[in-house]
């Protein structure tokens, strides 16, 4: 093949195949086939053909993987095998992932192998946190002059972490928490090292472990200074993010929450753009101000718990969930937590740090910031605000939903429309997208919450891809202004195709991941009873936001890629190279996988979402609006789905205080 002789310059081909979208649709079609095949085989193995079932299952397992492998190898026409082979492996891995996670198949596999009966590892999550942390420490002792070794170690550790998430996927999540590990850390204050995942945090952990290696890989091409510091920051950040998603002790959560700040601050400040110092300080101070208020609320809550139970204080999420606070106290604590989370999300009017931080951050920093760190805010709201203060969170849901729609979805969208800088545009589109997620959380119906969690993952993937692609063009042209581009599709056809796919995912075109999440959120919002009888208007506003999203994203795409080439500098740009293709490929595949088979995510989170809602609703039914609960502060029984307490010091010591 000709491609073998000229592997790096596919775009120099003058008849450069403007229809690079077509092969991509080919992937799409084949993935459907793969998925259908899997389902068919999975279903048939359920039947009574016992003698054939083993062979059948083996074929069912191998055929789609092989198919995906072949497709992955064939798709990138004009590329060398150093691109084709990894792509083939990636698509095969995704095929395995889909098959494993397919709802009916996963139970069949679990029961078939007896995995359900074997006890879960309690140290798995500690490995997930500890691997990157140990990697970061190891990086400190590696010589500074060996960038290849540093990069290799970092990437290896990250891939190791990703592999360590595999057992997470095998577990059948249900309503409860899994991989529970609970160790006393500081006994005197009731601080535990308590980590566990449920169906909600599961996906965020996997998202983190999935995105960070991609960000690292893409950064290794563009970051050439102070590699050692960079690798250290990346690994520390990964450990802190995973830790924050899995910790169920509020103290531990706070530790990881703050631990995230420093590496990200350094990443923006050292490797960022021209205004990086101002942007990094702004980022830090905004987040810090919020988290200080949260710390005050955490301290008060733990202290109240200790006072009411008469025992030691506790920072355990499930213990603190038992505390029923009167309204006048609860709204303040809720405000403390919410301030921290809403700044992180970020929601209007405290979103102003985000465009600055994104614009100045290096590409990898932007990817991680958008894909994972913003989810900290939404996840925190879901887990802690709704879990600890159900009454207050449902009382303010209507107001905050209005802010999410007007200030997030609509205002964010219009702001994005007016941007000249592509990265800033994507940053504002994040504000709009996170507005959907928050709206879904405020609406608190089954479908809106599922949609919100799904959209957290979706936004991570599609915005991650967009930032990555913006970084690609920035590395070539050192500008991000829309006006500096135009007609790029002619010189960079592959790049244009990938960008359009990511854009479509961001806009929410059916078939891509964005559609499912937004659709679930909007329908869930429409039927919500938490939004003070304006749920219909909110849903309409959110739907309008989809149109605005199309407006700003497509305008940007048009300005960048179509029309005549107006600048001479753009005439000889190199198309996306092998490294960049490999970095973005998993994201593009994930866009379609989630877009076509969202159920593999939804089925795992469904029961956890149902548990969250029933927790909220049971509290509100017991303490009806508008005054909810007048006091005194009391503790109720531990939630039925909570993992068993460690030594039960608090709950066993005061059975009398536990009101029904």
């Amino acid at each position: 093949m000709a491609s073998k002789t000229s592997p790096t310059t596919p775009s120099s081909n003058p008849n450069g195949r403007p229809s690079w979208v077509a092969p991509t649709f080919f992937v799409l079609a084949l993935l459907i086939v793969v998925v259908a095949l899997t389902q068919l085989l999975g279903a048939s193995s359920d039947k009574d053909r016992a003698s054939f079932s083993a062979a059948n299952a083996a074929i069912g397992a191998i055929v789609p993987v092989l198919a995906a492998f072949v497709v992955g190898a064939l798709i990138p026409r004009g590329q060398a095998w150093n691109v084709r082979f990894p792509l083939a492996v990636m698509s095969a891995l995704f095929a395995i992932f889909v098959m494993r996670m397919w709802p009916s198949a996963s139970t069949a596999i679990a029961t078939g192998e007896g995995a359900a009966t074997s006890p879960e590892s309690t140290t798995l999550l500690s490995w997930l946190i500890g691997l990157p942390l140990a990697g970061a420490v190891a990086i400190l002792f590696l010589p500074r002059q060996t960038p290849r070794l540093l990069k290799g170690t970092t990437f290896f550790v990250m891939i190791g972490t990703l592999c360590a998430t595999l057992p997470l996927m095998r577990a059948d999540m249900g309503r409860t928490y899994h991989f529970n590990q609970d160790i006393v850390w500081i006994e005197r204050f009731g601080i535990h090292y308590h980590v566990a995942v449920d169906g909600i945090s599961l996906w965020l952990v996997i998202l983190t472990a999935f995105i960070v290696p991609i960000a690292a890989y893409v950064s290794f091409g563009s970051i050439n200074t102070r590699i050692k510091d960079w690798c250290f920051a990346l690994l520390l950040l990964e450990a802190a993010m995973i830790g924050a998603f899995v910790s169920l002790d509020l103290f531990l959560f706070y530790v990881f929450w703050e631990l995230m700040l420093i590496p990200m601050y350094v990443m923006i400040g050292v490797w960022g753009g021209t205004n990086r110092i101002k942007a990094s300080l702004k980022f830090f101070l905004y987040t810090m101000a919020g988290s200080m208020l949260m710390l005050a609320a955490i301290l008060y809550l733990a202290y109240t718990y200790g006072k009411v139970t008469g025992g030691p204080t506790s920072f355990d999420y499930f213990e603190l969930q038992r505390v029923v606070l009167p309204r006048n106290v609860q709204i303040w604590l809720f405000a403390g937590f919410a301030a921290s989370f809403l700044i992180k999300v970020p929601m209007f009017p405290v979103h102003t740090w985000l465009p600055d931080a994104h614009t100045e951050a290096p590409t990898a920093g932007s990817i991680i910031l958008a894909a994972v760190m913003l989810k900290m805010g939404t996840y925190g709201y879901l887990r802690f605000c709704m879990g600890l203060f159900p009454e207050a969170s449902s009382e303010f849901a209507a107001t905050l939903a209005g802010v999410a729609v007007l200030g997030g979805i609509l205002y964010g969208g219009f702001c994005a429309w007016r941007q000249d800088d592509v990265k800033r545009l994507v940053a504002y589109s994040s504000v709009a997208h996170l507005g959907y997620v928050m709206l879904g959380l405020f609406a608190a119906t089954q479908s809106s919450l599922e949609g919100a969690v799904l959209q957290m993952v979706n936004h991570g993937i599609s915005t991650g891809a967009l930032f990555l692609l913006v970084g690609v063009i920035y590395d070539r042209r050192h500008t991000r202004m829309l006006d500096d581009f135009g007609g790029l599709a002619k010189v960079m056809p592959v790049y244009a195709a990938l960008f359009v796919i990511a854009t479509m995912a961001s806009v929410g075109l059916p078939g891509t991941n964005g559609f499912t999440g937004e659709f679930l959120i909007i329908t869930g919002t429409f039927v919500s009873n938490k939004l003070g009888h304006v749920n219909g208007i909110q849903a309409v506003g959110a739907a309008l936001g989809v149109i605005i999203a199309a407006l700003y994203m497509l305008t940007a795409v048009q300005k960048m890629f179509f029309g005549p080439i107006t600048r001479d500098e753009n005439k000889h740009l190199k198309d996306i190279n092998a490294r960049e293709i490999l970095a973005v490929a998993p994201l593009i595949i994930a866009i379609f996988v989630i877009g076509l088979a969202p159920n593999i995510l939804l089925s795992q989170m469904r029961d956890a979402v149902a548990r969250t809602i029933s927790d909220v609703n049971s509290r509100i039914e017991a303490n009806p609006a508008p005054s909810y609960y007048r006091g005194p502060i009391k503790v109720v029984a531990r939630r039925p789905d909570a993992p068993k307490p460690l030594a039960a010091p608090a709950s066993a010591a005061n059975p009398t205080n536990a009101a029904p």
Partner: protein
Amino acid sequence: MALAFILSPLLVIAAGGMLLMLAEAFAKPGRRGGLALGATMIFAAGFAFSIGVWMYGVEDVPERAMLAPWLQIDRFTIFFDAVLCLGGALAALLAGGYLPEHELERGEFYVLLLFATVGAMMLAAAGDVLIVFLGLETMSIGAYAITAFRRTSPRSAEGALKYFLLGAFAAALLLYGFALLYGATGHTDLAGIGEAVKKGGEKTPMMMIALVLVLVGLLFKVSAVPFHMWTPDAYEGAPTPATTYMAAVVKAGGFAMLLRVLLTCFGDKASMSWAAGWPPALAWIAVITMTVANLVAGQQESVKRMLAYSSIAHAGYLLVGVVACMHSPSQGVSSVLFYLLTYTVSTAGAFGALIYCGSRGKEAVTYEDLAGIGRRHPPAALAFSLFLISLAGLPPTAGFFGKWFVFRAAIDSGFYALTVVAFLNSVIGVYYYLRVMVFMYMREPAAGAPVATPMRSGYVTAALLLSAILVILLGIVPNQSLDMAIKAASVFGG
């Protein structure tokens, strides 16, 4: 024998100071390098003896009664002895590197450090106003002298003179307050004064004036706003190890005195009440101290001066813990004790890193001096960042636990507004600590500006390593030291 044993930390440091003075006198001029090591070993011995006494327990030693009421050796004292020795050891190590590097090497410095520490330990053990005054002066005179140690520098002399004049003035106020207290109660021992104050019920004007004078004198020593004017000048003018010593040991000694005097003399219900006692005054001073110090610290161009203001701000956080004593003295005191421990290691580390970043003729003082350190000397920058993060109170460092404990005590005592102010102040604090990191990592030195070259000194490296290890250990497994702080605070009851 048991008497000598429970007094051993104090005696070791005092005897060691005298021995060192002899050694210095007989040492050949060129061979004074060992003095720093000697001083460090003496401090280490004092620390070891403190731990030994702690493990043995002082409650059941009958000889304690022989010392009363002049000296009170209890767990509170022993805890302070350990913290003071730790701070002194770090300062001595830093001096061992700094003084020869900047051609200030004179043996008196170490001797003064040891004697001043004896004074600070007396403050922690004081049971009588005379001992309080004796300890205070012993500590202060040493501190004045080491502030003025850079004889050729006008700033050093200015700072020392300011410190000396204001310090003498404050000591006079304190003494006057004690005199009035004696007049009002007929006692010079703290416990006796406390009993009399308790019995007296309604406060006489004389008593109130005495309380105010004593408070002013005490707050001067811990450099709370508005009695902080001497601090930035003295801290900036002094050689950096002396600054370290003032920030760590003198401050800890001041808080030992503050807690001892306030909680023993004015520990009754009326004096501890919000309506008629000292807590509201201290709460307001805490708020003003934190806010003013943090705002001014953000404006500084000199890192040393910024750290001076930061030490004032930390005095404000500590005062929050003192105010929290109003409802439960044991919790408030334990939080202050633990905070002092974490603050000692972090601030000594921060000053140590600043020392490390400068070499002969090019002492690192301003932010500009630190530009580009992160690229050229990564270990120095990493260590400095660690201590700054700890001072800023971010996990997982010692400073976070210290802050957390103090704020927790304040919330438990119901001071919500005060705590929120303190929290917001920490955010301001983060701004100027991060600014150092900005210069170290994100700026390059201006063209033609002298590039900072770190010094080479085993002493300074050892001090940095020791504080870094402690900062991380106290941030991850603070259990043991927390328990010790809580046990130490239990001498003040409920």
